[in-house]
């Protein structure tokens, strides 16, 4: 198996792993982290494609590589804004829940009486 295909398949699995984390984690910080795993996977996939484009004496296509550098920086600024929003949410409400109802209260009521 050649290098590009190997890392391309690895990137596909990274994207899947990140997507699973994004969908299942209740903690918003873990969602931001999972988004970064997805992002890294997408970047790696793009990098594998750039590696296939080796031509004209260059070991890889420089155009996607330059776009990747732009992408990594933009992904970082998005993460920084997301973390700031999350910390502000924590400051204002004292909690980081994304649910509409209080998780502790919900747990208590479900213990006390059965669901309708």
């Amino acid at each position: 198996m050649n290098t590009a295909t190997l890392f391309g398949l690895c990137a596909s699995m990274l994207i899947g792993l990140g997507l699973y984390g994004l969908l299942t984690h209740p903690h918003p910080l873990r969602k931001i982290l999972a988004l970064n795993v997805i992002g890294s996977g997408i970047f790696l996939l793009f990098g594998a494609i750039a590696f296939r484009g080796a031509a004209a004496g260059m070991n890889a296509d420089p155009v996607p590589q330059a776009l990747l550098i732009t992408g990594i920086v933009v992904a970082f600024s998005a993460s920084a804004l997301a973390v700031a929003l999350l910390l502000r949410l924590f400051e204002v409400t004292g909690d980081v829940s994304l649910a509409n109802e209080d998780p502790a209260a919900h747990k208590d009521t479900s213990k006390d009486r059965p669901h309708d």
Partner: protein
Amino acid sequence: MTPSLALNLALALLLLGMAGWAVLVRSTQAAVIGFMVFGLLLTLAWARLDGLDVALTEAAIGGGLTGFLLLGAAVRLRSVEHRATLQAPGLATRILAALAAGSVTLLLAFAVLTLPSPAPSLAPAVAENIAMTQVGNPVTAVLLAFRALDTLLETLVLVLAMLGIWSLADDRVWGGRPGFAIAHDASGILHYAARILVPIGVVIGGYIFWIGADDPGGKFQGATLLAAMWLLLVLAGLRDAPRVSSQALRLWVVLGPLVFISVGLLGSWLAGSFLGYPQGYAKLMIVTVELALLPSLTLILGLLIMGAPKREIGR
């Protein structure tokens, strides 16, 4: 199996293992540290894919700064971690999520295995025109000449993200300093490390910035290293975080983007297109833009990590 393939395979397995750890482990702090290790491994993968410029960026920003940002937030949110995990979804949701994620992976894997051959490439076009830009590193040529508009918009995104973070400040502390400070301890190890490391880091940052014209490196990687040194100074208590209402700070922040836009407008006057460079002056204009961007990017990257203002003006 050749040694090269064995190395790639080991690297891919380690990457998947660390990403799995970062996604699945219970403790948020452990997950973030796993993510930082993942970032370092990814840097090696970039080196294997002959993307040294990307490898440097990934090491500095993807693994380094992002990891630092997430770790800081994980520590601050430790008290509510248990409450957050109470809302974990049920088994059915997990199975559905695994099915969705698995099918995305399968689709992508199918796409990877059926990529067109020979691969389309813009490398010949870059090789043909790189002489006009007078820089030797093709990635820098793409970033600052062929696709300079992307880079301009990227710096604007950074400024916008910074403004977004500043605007999250409470009204009472608007214009104040970010709450990013640690008690000053002149005998502490952090204080000592900052005094030893910062001069070395600044030299390396400047070097990575300067060689970017002809070798892997450039303003983003250099600025990230400089920003890290600034954060170290602030963390060690040697310098306080700046007031975000400071006119000097704001001037340095917008200097890079303003020079970039001015050079672009100059291009539409002298070379007939926005961000076009007149014959023979490409290198001069590229270096001007990079020099102006370096301090702005350093400040913006540092300020993105420091977060929203927390302390009133004067404190």
